[in-house]
């Protein structure tokens, strides 16, 4: 029986005593009613992690995976290959200034400062299921914008059939890129109709907070019906293309990782079964759901396709 304590409060999240005392004075002035609305803040002025958002495709027994796990158990090879490496090596990774280039088969190509890129879009909190190709899973309260918004803004031309998302390539700041573990920069891609699907999301935050670097700050793709590695992190370029992008894992091991990489319990990875998954924090394995539980919303995108062939 596995029982998880609620996420621990790190010492950095504990309000400094002097601030706390100041606030008490302030509270006294404002009145006791304000007490309920005060959320503890950390040194960076961020609210304590809060599992907020509209649930999408959650099963009755799905609860958000603790913040501690979401932010310390990461596959982000740009910061090292061990799960704990990114949280360690991404400390101090600067995400401002940050430029996002939108180009390729679009009428309005542009280089955006991140702030300008995000400004016109509506920031939403969404709780999604997350299934890694390694047969573990989480439930994550993301914050971000719909990918479709930024694609439509660029006005794709009739030639646009795919969307290619590229991660920052900077071995100085991303020490994992000093080793040829994968072909850098990390490139991911979607078919245009997949990218325009309302579930396709660009995360800028998690747990109501700014996205930690180890989770792909400042901009990270989230495609909840696909295996986690499809979610490119620290994105600097979104390019609309006519041909299918060559994606990082597909280049590394084409027989193991296809372009689509939809979650599918019936199609095994060559080295392990995909029928079940271990939810982080739970002991008994759960059955994996077709399209990770989003079949109702996305199955029509693949009507008539042989998903064994297009894995």
């Amino acid at each position, binding site marked *: *029986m596995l*029982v998880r304590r609620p996420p621990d409060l790190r010492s950095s999240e504990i309000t400094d005593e002097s601030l706390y005392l100041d606030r008490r004075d302030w509270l006294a002035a404002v009145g006791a009613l304000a007490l309920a609305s005060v959320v503890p803040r950390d040194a960076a002025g961020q609210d304590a992690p809060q599992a907020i958002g509209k649930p999408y495709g959650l099963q009755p027994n799905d609860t958000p995976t603790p913040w*501690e796990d979401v932010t310390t*158990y990461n596959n982000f090879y740009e910061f090292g290959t061990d799960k704990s490496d990114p949280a360690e090596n991404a400390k101090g990774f600067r995400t401002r200034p940050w430029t996002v280039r939108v180009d390729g088969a679009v009428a309005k190509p542009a280089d955006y400062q991140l702030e300008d890129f995000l400004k016109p879009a509506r920031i939403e909190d969404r709780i999604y299921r997350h299934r890694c190709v390694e047969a*573990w899973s989480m439930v994550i309260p993301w914050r971000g914008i719909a990918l479709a918004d930024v694609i439509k803004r660029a006005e794709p031309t009739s030639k646009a059939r795919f969307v290619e998302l590229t991660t920052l390539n900077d071995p100085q700041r991303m020490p994992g890129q000093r080793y040829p573990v*994968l072909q850098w920069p990390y490139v991911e891609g979607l078919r245009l109709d997949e990218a325009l699907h309302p579930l396709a999301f660009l995360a800028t935050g998690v747990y109501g907070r700014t996205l930690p670097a180890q989770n792909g700050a400042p901009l990270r793709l989230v495609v909840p019906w696909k295996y986690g590695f499809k979610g490119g992190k620290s994105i600097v370029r979104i390019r609309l293309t006519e041909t299918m992008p060559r994606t990082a894992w597909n280049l590394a*091991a084409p027989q193991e990782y296809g372009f689509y990489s939809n979650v599918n319990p019936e199609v095994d990875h060559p*080295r392990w079964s995909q029928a079940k998954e*271990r939810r982080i924090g739970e002991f008994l394995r759960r059955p994996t759901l077709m399209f990770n539980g989003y079949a109702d919303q996305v199955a029509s995108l693949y009507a008539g396709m042989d998903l064994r062939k297009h894995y």
Partner: protein
Amino acid sequence: MLAAFDRGLRVVVEWLHARVGTVKQPGWFRAGLFIAALIPLLVAFGALGSDLVMGTRWFGSNPIKQAEHFLGEWTLRLLMFTVAITPLRRLTGWNWLAKHRRTLGLFAFAYVATHFLVWGLLDVQLDWPELVKDLTKRPYIVIGFIAFLMMTALAVTSTQNAIRSMKQRWNKLHRLVYVIVALGLVHFLMAVKRDIEDPLIFAAVFAGIFLLRWRLTRSEWSAVRTTA
């Protein structure tokens, strides 16, 4: 090149024998070795048990996987110490090391058996169809399982009685340890995704030990041993 290596090795061996060759086994050695070899196993049980029952994160967010990796790597480490005994003995002249090889080998078996049990009971959770599929169709698991069966055979025949009754065949059978190491390394290499650094480091250390063993156990070295 090999001749130059041998000449250098001879210098080292003569120097070491002259310096430390007469050192006797310290009184605490047997108990110390036993405790040292046992500690990682206790750590594995403690960390995994605490993580599963109390929700701690000694083994991170996915403690069962982490325990598997931890136990697998310690199996390789124990095998490494086991096969290092003979070259180390030749290097230093400490012949008393020989009787500890069995202890280390049996500890390696304890680690691999725990590795196998954690995988079957806690990871796959006795999902028989999947266990059968894994053990027959997934090459890296098949390879690991074969190595485990071989280690079982060596553990079972590690008694004084078996050594006596099997005579020459015992030596032949226990040379399987080299096959086991090779299979273990391949199993590790195939299990990782692209981060092949750790298995390659293990492979390099084993290669070094085997090279030393190969050069140090040729007959012409007996002269060095007697003069020491």
